């Protein structure tokens, strides 16, 4: 295989599931390219990626805020009413002296999800305004380091498991935050599926290449 220079490597894609090498081809706006071996989506093309990403990540942040302020579930047990919120879940671990679990949980279900979507918002803003070439790079690197550590989806399933355990002992009422968390998880899933991090890298490359060229010619 012969390449003109290292930049030509950007036309190649390696499937993240089975590591088959592919050559990137131009595809229609809104469509996707799949791996020929295992069928995983390799990349998509969305001409308005920055706008879509910004809208989705702001929506996700709003739902995340709702999910943290309001009670997730309320239960009635022996005439007493009890409720939990996301922060209360790990704060009570701290109160009981479980500092390590409390710390791990607070990062997995609170700090990392919050960080990821704040980074998304900053990133898409920078790309939209065509500024911050190095900052956007730092943010993208940080993003790919913390992405695998966000566990809101697993926490959502855990709530359901915990509630099933309580059926028969207590009366259960779902709170607003539960539904907000569900919307947040769905948005999170949708974003990680449709806006793969390599597509944001390519968008960044296109934007700053164009900008630098303009500055040179001007």
């Amino acid at each position, binding site marked *: *295989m*012969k*390449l*003109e*220079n*290292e930049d030509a*490597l*950007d036309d*190649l*894609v*390696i499937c*993240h*599931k*089975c*590591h*088959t*090498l592919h050559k990137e081809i131009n595809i229609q706006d809104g469509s996707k390219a799949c791996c020929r071996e*295992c069928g995983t989506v390799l990349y998509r093309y969305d001409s308005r990626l920055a706008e879509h990403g910004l809208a989705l990540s702001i929506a996700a942040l709003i739902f995340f805020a709702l999910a943290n302020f309001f009670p997730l*579930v309320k*239960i009635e*047990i*022996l005439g007493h009413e*009890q*409720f*939990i919120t996301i922060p*209360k*879940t*790990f*704060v*009570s*671990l701290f109160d*009981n002296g*479980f500092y*390590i*679990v409390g710390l*791990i*949980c607070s990062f*997995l*279900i609170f700090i990392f999800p919050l960080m990821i979507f704040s980074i998304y918002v900053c990133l898409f803003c920078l790309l939209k305004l065509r500024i911050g070439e190095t900052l956007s*790079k730092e943010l*993208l*690197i940080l993003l*790919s*380091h913390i992405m*695998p*550590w966000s*566990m809101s989806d*697993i*926490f959502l*399933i*855990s*709530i359901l*498991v*915990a509630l*099933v*355990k*309580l059926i028969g002992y207590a009366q259960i009422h779902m709170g607003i935050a539960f539904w907000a968390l569900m919307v947040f998880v769905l948005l999170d899933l949708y974003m990680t599926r449709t806006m793969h*991090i*390599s597509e944001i*890298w390519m968008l960044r490359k296109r934007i700053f290449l164009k900008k630098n060229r303009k500055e040179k010619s001007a």
Partner: protein
Amino acid sequence: MDVEKKNLFKKEQEREVCMIEVKEDELIRCPVCEAVNIDKGKENKCRRCGSAIYKHRTFQTEKSWAYLITAIIAYIPANLYPMLITKQFGTTEGSTILGGVLMLWEHGSYPIAAIIFFASIVIPVLKFLVLFYLLISVKYPLGKDRKVNKHKLYYLTEVIGPWSMIDVFVVAILAALIHLANIEIVAGTAATAFALSVFFTLLAAHAFDTRLIKENR
């Protein structure tokens, strides 16, 4: 005419020199930004994000081994000590992971028992075994190695791995939800051990260099 031709030929030659010849199996994927890079042996730096890709040919598995062994050690107390302690009208009762699963099964909550069993026992053990196999097989090729797509195996553990946190979250939720005067649920020592075990398995998986797996391409 002749001079022009000569010049053209010269230009062609120059372009030939500029081209880089790469073998397909020398292309590697950056673990951070997923850009395709040329494997230059020692000290590869990603051309897009600058992350180190290859450090040294003999070094890569050690970190992963260390994390994996720590995770396995933490998994032992996670199974021996109680995960959940129920204080009910003065009596204190602790249940281990396996005990909790058995109790749920006896009560007839089969789906929940199955979920907890998978999340807390099958997934961690499976992940230990897969990482063990991958770490050994990149150093010493085993018999029918080539038939297994190790990239897929690795990807699978990466996807299902975090789900083993379910039980820790469930304990955290129950402990936060139920603390009355008469009935109280508290997390047990196993919760800490288990959370640490999951944490270190995830670190081991991330430290594992997928570029060590080469034979599938």
